[in-house]
């Protein structure tokens, strides 16, 4: 049998990866309510090989819902750095994207992707389970095509992310 090229190995790895994703969800802002129907029999995300998970070390996806402020950002970064590669971040709702209705708040940090790399955003308030599922499907496509490379960007641009983090967290 011929030896497989590195490309082929990667593409098989990606294919397998996208079929078995475990998600840790960080829901201090909003939207935690949309996840139980997404996970359970109504919308049943397990049919795509997705499952909720409780610890950061075993999870592949970090789903962050709603606003993040200085206090919660610190925890999110800890969780993100505890996760093992490959890891993917989904921002859920307008707040992770641009601050949403809290754009003028003294605490909300507005843009998630200045602090950790986001692979995907679900815009709008609040995304229904259909939108969440379609985001997962999209993420699978990105993984398959090798475009979900947030964890690589985090390493490559570590100085940029760390500087931004230091600016708000002190």
């Amino acid at each position, binding site marked *: 049998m011929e030896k497989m090229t590195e490309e082929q190995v990667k593409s098989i790895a990606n294919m397998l990866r996208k079929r078995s994703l475990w998600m840790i969800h960080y829901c201090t802002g909003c939207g935690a309510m949309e996840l139980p129907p997404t996970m359970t029999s109504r919308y049943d995300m397990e049919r795509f090989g997705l499952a909720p998970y409780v610890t950061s070390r075993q999870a592949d996806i970090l789903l962050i819902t709603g606003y993040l402020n200085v206090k919660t950002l*610190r925890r999110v970064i800890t969780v993100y750095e505890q996760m093992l590669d490959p890891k993917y971040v989904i921002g859920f709702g307008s707040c992770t994207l641009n601050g949403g209705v809290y754009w003028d*708040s*003294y605490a909300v940090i*507005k843009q998630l*992707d200045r602090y950790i790399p986001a692979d995907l955003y679900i815009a709008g308030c609040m995304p229904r389970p259909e939108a969440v599922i379609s985001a997962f499907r999209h993420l699978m496509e990105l993984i398959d095509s090798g475009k979900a490379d947030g964890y690589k960007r985090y390493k490559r641009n570590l100085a940029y992310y760390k500087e931004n983090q230091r600016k708000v967290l002190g």
Partner: protein
Amino acid sequence: MMDIVDKIKGIEGVKVTVQRENRIFVDVSEDKVISTLYNMKLIGFHQLSVQNVIDRIKDNKFEIFYVLYSREYKINAIVRTWIDRENPVIKTADKIYPSAHTWEREISEMFGIKVDGNEDSGKPFILENWKDLPPMRKDFDSVKYSSEHFVFRHSEGENE
């Protein structure tokens, strides 16, 4: 209900307004708050639901209020007092209502009000590394603070 109002009126130095069924305002001067709260508890208001502050910046005052509830009578009584905005100090109510301890800690952080007798007042509570005016004061400019500290997204795509 009216017999309770009469009982409250018996406390020294209070001004009682019945706003509507089951809601009473009890206004007192700053130095009589603690004794009033004590007497309210004796009357039957055993629960402190909320203690908080309103910044009455036009009058140059802070309004401190305590929302009390009586399960027995099903009445809310709101004890209010006003203090100066300059060097604001209040006395702790945590010997009467233990939950006041935490409310006061939040008040001292969010409004910069010193709480006498509460050893946790002034300790960091919710905010981290806060160096500006206390954020719930009306003269604190939230938009300015936010735009100075957190970058707003103007264009599409990631900022790399």
